[in-house]
């Protein structure tokens, strides 16, 4: 058996052993000592301890190492198994330093109740964590895989090694943070959608219960909130996205004609994009103020922009004003790359400005237009700050968007399982819409 295959076997052993690995916990309350053991996969989904974020990184790296070793890419395999070893090792170090891990509290409390000890949470002062033998074997297997799978370190091989590893060095830092702070929480979020969870205690797996409530229990608050929030979000996307395309496109076309002072205007139009959502919304709050706002003063009306249906007008104006700059820059860049000879040929054929726009400019801007369409749709589906700061969370039936419900339910009301299910549904909607748009974009390019 070659070294690669042994290393691959060990990397695989890491993944298999992980399923049987576990942590131990011991505590003493009123002279009674209880100990419990908890399987690592269960601990992984207890959603309660920061060091747990390192485990998915270790697992992803171990899978990558296994694939690399199978393909006899020893150096790459070694790199990934090294990452897996460090990640898993760090998890063990950090986890054992936690003196009162909340994931371990629930089973410890159950063990104390079983031992008929009357106690309060505060009596459980110290939970000493530890690991069972399989956990240490898990670490050893991946560490051995790293050692056994190392490549040839001759001068020539070192050069090749450097060349092979350089791309990973470039993407490594991003990948590291992406896996720990984005991918892993996203996976946990999806898992939480299948649980009943108050953020503080261990989540209870309830299968599809949350989705059943959200889709079929018409008397339930969350059923109504999902429908209302999603419909309001879709309404906002339909109202806002066209303007998020047309307004910056118009401005880009105007600036492309190089009028006097175009650089100043370009900077002015771009400026709002640099502002935070709080700054933008608080400023516009005064602009639209019913009594003292300049909009009503200027128009000579007494409109209440904070009440539906005018609220939507205000939200679209504020959002378009905020988003225009960054989209406009993309269009300006696309306009600059439209070949001039096409315009000249169109002129020779007698085309006017409008014909040139539709037959030369637009066909050359298909890609940036589709790109900005996708990003605008995704961004507007995620609307939160504008309605939250401008109008607050009132007019429940009128302009509360789904993300407001999700935030309130999870953070303020600690109904984290249900709100994760709502977030998953919102995510799926965005994925479906984006997928359709991407398909259209690819098809357009092929045509």
């Amino acid at each position, binding site marked *: 058996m070659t070294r690669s295959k042994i290393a691959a076997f060990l990397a695989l052993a890491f993944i298999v052993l992980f399923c049987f690995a576990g942590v131990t916990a011991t505590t003493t309350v009123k002279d009674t000592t209880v100990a419990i053991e908890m399987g690592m996969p269960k601990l992984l989904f207890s959603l309660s301890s920061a060091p747990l974020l390192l485990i998915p990184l270790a697992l992803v790296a171990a899978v990558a190492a296994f694939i690399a070793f199978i393909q006899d890419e020893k150096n790459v395999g070694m790199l990934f198994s090294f990452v897996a070893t460090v990640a898993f090792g760090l998890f063990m170090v950090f986890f054992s330093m936690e*003196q*009162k891990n*909340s994931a371990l509290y629930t089973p410890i409390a159950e063990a104390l109740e079983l031992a008929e000890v009357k106690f*309060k*949470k*505060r009596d459980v*002062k*110290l939970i000493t964590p530890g690991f069972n033998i399989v956990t240490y074997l898990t670490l050893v297997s991946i560490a051995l895989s790293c050692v056994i799978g190392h490549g040839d370190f001759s001068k020539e091989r070192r050069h090749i090694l450097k060349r092979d590893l350089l791309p990973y060095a470039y993407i490594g830092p991003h990948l590291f943070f992406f896996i720990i702070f984005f991918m892993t929480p996203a996976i946990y979020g999806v898992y939480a959608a299948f649980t*009943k969870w*108050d*953020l*503080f205690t261990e989540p209870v797996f309830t299968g599809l219960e*949350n989705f059943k*409530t959200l889709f079929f229990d018409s*008397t*339930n*608050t*969350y059923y109504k909130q999902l429908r209302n929030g999603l419909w309001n979000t879709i309404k906002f996307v339909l109202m806002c996205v066209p303007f998020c395309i047309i307004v910056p496109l118009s401005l880009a076309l105007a600036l492309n004609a190089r009028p006097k002072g175009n650089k100043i205007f370009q900077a002015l139009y771009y400026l709002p994009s640099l502002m935070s959502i709080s700054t933008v919304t608080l400023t516009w709050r005064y602009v639209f*103020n*019913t*009594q*003292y706002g300049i909009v009503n003063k200027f128009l000579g009306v007494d409109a*209440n922009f*904070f*009440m*539906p249906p005018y609220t939507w007008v205000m939200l679209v104006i504020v959002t378009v004003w905020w988003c225009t700059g960054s989209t406009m820059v993309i269009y300006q860049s696309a306009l600059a790359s439209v070949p001039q000879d096409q315009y000249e040929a169109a002129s020779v054929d007698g085309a006017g400005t409008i014909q040139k726009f539709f037959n030369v400019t637009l066909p050359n801007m298909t890609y940036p237009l589709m790109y900005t369409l996708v990003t605008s749709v995704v961004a507007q589906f995620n609307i939160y700050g504008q309605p939250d700061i401008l109008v607050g*969370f*009132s*007019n*429940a*039936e*009128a302009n509360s968007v789904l993300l407001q419900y999700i935030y*309130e*339910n999870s*953070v*303020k*009301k*600690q*109904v984290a*399982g*249900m709100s994760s299910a709502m977030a998953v549904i919102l995510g799926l909607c965005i994925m479906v819409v984006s997928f359709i748009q991407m398909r259209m974009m690819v098809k357009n390019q092929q045509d």
Partner: protein
Amino acid sequence: MKKTLALVLSLVMLLTAATAMAATEINYWSVFTGGDGAVMQGMVDAFNASQDEVIVNHTPMTADDLYQKIPLTVQTGTGIPDVCVVHIERIPNFVDQELLYSYDLDLVAEAGIKQENYNQAAWVKSTIDDEQYGIPLDVHGYITYINKDLFDQYGLNEILADGYITFDEVKWAGDKAKEQGFTGKTFDLGWMRAQMLGYYAQLADGHKLTDDGVAPALDREAMKKAMETMKELYEQGYTTTKTDDYSSMFYGGELLIWSEGIWMKAAAVDAGVNFEMYPAVCFDPATCKEWMSSHNFVQFADEERTEEEDLAVAKFVNFMGENSLVWAKDAGQVPAHVSLNEVAEFASMPQAFLADPAREDELAIYYYLHWGLFDTAFSRIGWDFVDGTIEIDAAIDQVLQEVADAIAAQ
């Protein structure tokens, strides 16, 4: 050599002495971020300057932020404040979640804290299972301000004779002022949750929010009557609209009767408006009640907090109680420390009527395990039933359903 040894020894002794005399540092979180935040910081500074045994580090934040952060902080076990100010209604839920430690009454007595020193309505509300979880700083609530200049100008003072203002009198005052050319609004719809719970308390015996202590329940007829009254006032044009800046309107002489928190007194003084304060507008003076709350000093669960720190906290809390005249003067609150009731300067303040023990029954402090959920659900429908966005019965159903569903889904 001897000199060197002596120098080293004296340095060691100095260091030891310095360590022994080192002040106990305690971290204090509060919900005071506006004008009251500056007053609170002044009180903390005064405490720090008054002695050298305890140093208090004050971190103010909005109530919403604090209530979101604190359970997570206690959960992580790091950075837990030694003492914290929370609203009294939150205490039952914190106790239920075992997030709070009760006070060791013997220990705090060493610093001067005793039950008889405090407003009993506030003290007993934070006594749970014979354990004391909160020490009140103040009581505060939603009451009524009247613009005295406008009242004089339009001859409305007769409605103030008995010290109470009823809803019928509000209408009468509005009509009379309008007849004489007043173009502003009569009455404001402000922080609807606080306002409505005051009116509900006047109509519902015991101002209940639950029957069994867990599931939400309202006296529907009482809540309906309170809501219908607000809607009627709005539809008849007596009240401000949703986006009216009612505070500025009151300061600017465009609002006759301002329903607001007592904490806005300082702002009203700064604005230079000539005002007087009265109990909440009522249906019947005999059953008048105000929605009230109380800022309480509590200690969140922290295994690492020492007895020395607990004593330092007690000294700080006692100082704040004994020296809360400034809290009444500059932040407009009613101090919970009863010694202040005998101070002439406090007795002359417009909010002092709330400290009258004879009025204790008027103070409607709510007590419900799931207050946080109720607060969120009720705050959402705040204005919607007034302008017809939602029917009154549907609004009540929505609140009850939302709280019940949240309890079930937690």
